[in-house]
């Protein structure tokens, strides 16, 4: 039997990888991918909770899944917007390196 703990550990691990990627990477696209990892970790959590902890037949039975669907779609919108901005950034600056995005400081 696979317990819920496995999913929670998996999700926590993916989330931490995502956080590491956000902090360590300098390429805007890779940062976006890391953020995506964080969101997927959340989805694993939501679905695991919904499957294991919510008793069948309750109103909340599918809440976790619905939440996950919203997270997926909003993440897609976010990525669409982000890629649009990164394209623009590349046109302006010929680089997508966040270290070089530093016209404004303090």
């Amino acid at each position, binding site marked *: 039997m696979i317990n819920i703990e496995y999913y929670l550990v998996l999700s926590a691990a993916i*989330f931490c990888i*995502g956080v590491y990627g*956000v902090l360590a990477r300098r390429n*805007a696209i890779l*940062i*976006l991918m890391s*953020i995506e990892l*964080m*969101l997927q*970790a*959340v989805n694993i*959590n*939501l679905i*695991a*909770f919904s499957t294991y*902890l*919510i008793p069948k037949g309750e*109103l*909340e039975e599918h*809440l*976790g899944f*619905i*939440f996950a669907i*919203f*997270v997926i779609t*909003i993440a897609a*919108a*976010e990525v669409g*917007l*982000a890629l649009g*901005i*990164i394209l*623009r*950034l590349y046109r*302006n*600056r010929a680089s997508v390196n*966040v270290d070089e*995005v530093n*016209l*404004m400081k*303090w």
Partner: protein
Amino acid sequence: MFPADLYLLMPELALAGMAIIVILADLVLKRRDLLAPLSLIGLAVPVALSIVLWLKLDSIDPHALSGFSGFFVVDYFSLFFKFLILGATALVIMASRESVTRFSRFQGEYYALIMMASGGMMLMAAATELVSIYVALELSALSTVALIALLKNSRSIEASMKFLILSAISSAVMLYGMALVFGLTGSTRLLDIADRLTSVSELIDQPALLLGVIFIITGFGFKISSVPFQMWVPDVYEGAPTPVAAYLSVASKAAGFAVIIRVFFLAFGSLTDEWALLFAVLAAVSMFIGNLVAIAQKNIKRMLGYSTIAHAGFIMVGLAAIGREGELLGPGVESILFYLVAYAATNLGAFIAVIAISSKINSELIDDYAGVARRNPFLAFALAVSLVSLMGLPPTAGFWAKLNVFNAAIETDLVWLALIGMINSVISAYFYLRVIKTMYLSPPASEERITADLPLKAALAIAVIGLLFIGIVPGFVMDVVETAVGTLA
């Protein structure tokens, strides 16, 4: 079952519908100058619908209508924020007629996006459930990202990039917190979460719950630009089109505080020991960082950006000032709502004046504001009054706002926090007064008059009269605020 609830959502639906109409009109119409009046009419519809809902609330007993199986509520609190956000949006649209011409190809998008962002913020204030809170939050955040990028020059793209990445990170962290809370309590509805937390006593001691709460603070802290999540503020204010910065500083902050009040006072009311102190510390740090760094600024928009961080700190004093056992919704929450109204009038006044002056003198440096008083006395006076109100001196709205917040802190034994707040008010006087001094005492670079168009002047006049009105007769707003907080429980 569902259609019966739809009328509760009418203001938001009307606003979204009007935003779509504006986009379509932009595709079809040749005359771009019709878009601003069209969007103002678009804002009038939700205002009217909100008034209808307010009158309806008067006639029923618990003064709150919950819809969509508890995902959404219409009460005085949410309607209060609807009026505040719609009012701020209307003033920003009035003031942006000239700035909009700078993004010639995207005028329709500007108005539509600002309306969608308002729709998201109105939903934020009315949502009583984590999924809808998240969707509302992202609706406003993503619209704002696009708004910041509209200028399409390097600075604006850079600002929107920074805003987007930080917003995405903070909302991912917040979601993780929400998932933990959902897993522990088995519900995403705020009232159910509160029920579970009080009925199942071992939940309170769960470290995972505390982690979830702290993660949720991350997401909201980003919205209100409180300290550890404030890095985006100055850059976005400098890079974004000025009306967007004005809008962001007022509406986004108001909606953020509305969500915080709902989530923390309704769902996590039994955890006050954990988060009240956290908010107190964040408030103190925000005030210091905002005010001290603002002193060093040369660009007025950046200065206002740091000032907005400091004001987030002042408002958070109200969050920390929760009553002792049993009276959670005490003077603290009322002082927050009052502060938000006062801050909306004040900061919009300051920003609208900056829009008018900076677009004419083509500079955002404080030094270039020299002698503006002689080039246009009205604009200089309005900016000066707004800055005095930001300082918190009578007879302006800012004075009563700060007084209320500090009073609430003292009443709930947070004298140290109130003291820090007062020290910070004194620090802030330095950089606000410097701008006034430059405008009135320094010799102007040229004698050419600074002109502004009529809608902008009207918006500016409304903001300034509003802040003076609140400053002279604070009782009126205080009554409204008391009604709004009254229905919250």
